[in-house]
């Protein structure tokens, strides 16, 4: 065997292993939540509340919690990331742009728990005083902090997309006398729409899968949130809180329902990214 074949076999093995892991996890979750599918309990869980003392094990409030935290965090993170990457790749002078990019790269490496820490001691008291209602642990706090977590990755993806436009397009815009802002708005932005969408969707996945920020900042109440100042529990935080329950109990089984929902969401998101990626290729 020469070196190439060894390398090929090695890579193939690694690929098969990681691919089969993803499938195995799905099978494992389906197997453990199998009893929930009998009699359609699984679908009942998706629209009922959680109150173990009264025999209710639904995950609807957590579903609502996850969706509202994720949606709101995107509302903060998307404009911020778009602006920051426009600054880095188009508007700012080269030196400052490089400094910004390095800072953003560094931000991606900060562990989530640090953001959670900062949130508990700085953001939560601020939100509490600011709105003078509730404990300050609510959807707003969690989504603000979560937007800080997902922005760096989004900024880097956007910047890469903006910088990948063909030099001829950029030169043409310059030759026509376009200002940097005009060039960004009329040339780069339309050209990058697929990249922007892909970055956005990947961030949704990241935001949905995050556990610690919601666990530390959202308050974990099991009521369906009625406003962004209400305490809420995300699916991931719910799993973390209930995992201690007795293995044979229904509580424990229902966290596999929560896991399955998260898995399905993530799979759907990745599929969407693939489709968009393919569309982007065709259009070029």
């Amino acid at each position, binding site marked *: 065997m020469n070196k190439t074949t060894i390398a090929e076999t090695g890579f193939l093995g690694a690929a098969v292993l990681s691919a089969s892991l993803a499938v195995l996890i799905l099978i494992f979750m389906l197997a453990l939540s199998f009893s929930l599918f009998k009699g359609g309990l699984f679908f009942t869980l998706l629209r009922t509340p*959680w109150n173990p003392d009264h025999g209710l094990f639904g995950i609807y409030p957590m579903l609502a919690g996850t969706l509202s935290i994720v949606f709101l965090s995107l509302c903060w993170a998307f404009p911020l990331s778009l602006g920051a990457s426009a600054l880095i790749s188009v508007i700012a002078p080269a030196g400052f742009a490089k400094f910004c990019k390095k800072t953003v790269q560094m931000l991606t490496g900060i562990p989530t728990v640090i953001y959670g820490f900062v949130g*508990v*001691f700085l953001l939560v008291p601020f939100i509490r005083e600011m709105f003078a209602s509730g*404990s300050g*642990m609510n959807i707003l706090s969690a989504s603000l902090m979560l937007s800080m977590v997902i922005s760096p990755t989004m900024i880097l993806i956007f910047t890469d997309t903006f910088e990948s436009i063909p030099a001829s397009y950029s030169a043409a815009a310059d030759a026509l006398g376009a200002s940097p802002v005009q060039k960004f708005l009329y040339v780069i932005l339309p050209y990058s729409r697929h990249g922007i969408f892909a970055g956005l969707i990947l961030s949704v996945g990241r935001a949905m899968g995050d556990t610690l920020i919601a666990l530390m900042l959202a308050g974990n*109440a*099991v*009521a369906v949130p009625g406003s962004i100042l209400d305490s809420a529990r995300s699916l991931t935080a719910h799993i973390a809180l209930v995992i*201690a329950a007795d293995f044979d109990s229904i*509580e424990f089984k229902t966290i596999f329902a929560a896991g399955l929902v998260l898995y399905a969401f993530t799979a759907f998101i990745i599929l969407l990214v693939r489709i968009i990626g393919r569309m982007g290729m065709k259009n070029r």
Partner: protein
Amino acid sequence: MLSISKRSVSLTGFFILFLFMGSSAVQAGTIDLFTSEKGEIKISGGTAHIPVMKDAAKLIMEHNRDIRISIAGGGSGVGIKQVGEGLVDIGNSGRKPTDDEIQKYGLKLFQWAIDGVGVVVNPKNPVKKLSTLQLTEIFSGKIVNWKALGGSDKPINVYTRDNSSGTREVFWEKALDKGEITDKANVVVSNGAMKTAVANDSYGIGYVSVGHMDKSTAPVILDGAEPTIDNVKNGSYKIARGLFSNTKGEPKGLVKKFIDFLFSPEGQELAAKNGFIPIK
């Protein structure tokens, strides 16, 4: 918040260890049992137990470096489950394991201290006395403003623990008489996290192990009885519970010695130093 509480717990652990080492170095006793031992003890479960477990582990490991003791939290439910499934040697619980659990896993219970569970509010809150009725109405969400209790016109922020918590179990049974806990309550994951949450929230109310109480939160006098160790001891404060260390089957070898140590004068002194009532 999990990590904050762990850190503060270990800091107090260290501090108390220093206080204690001076006195223990002179009079050696039960600790000599560990002299020729070797091996590992894994402990998990109740978060109220952690300071005592840490202190005991430090003393034993200082005495004999061939012994390794690891301590994790997780809550009473986790402790019982993990010891039952053989994942750890000792599973701590802040409640008595149910008959089902004892039977299913063949648990042996060792209650080495008594602890109270007290209601706490922020020190800035003027409301420091409540009746059981008022407490039930606060936790069920019937009273939602501090004004109704003579405080400022601010909404009440209720904090509770997750369902595997022994502290929650005891509080829910003995203070709330198994009454409703509002679904709007914030949920925190340990005694330490509860303290941090109420200490930071001027309008919060929660409950912690009496052993964990300090100046960061203010205890609430319930039906005229203050949640202090003395009142738990003389029976005037009713919301109390045993602190249990559970093993699967009769403990053997090193694990048995560790349990014996908890009941020895040294072990019992550690319990008292950490704000619990020794059993002996």
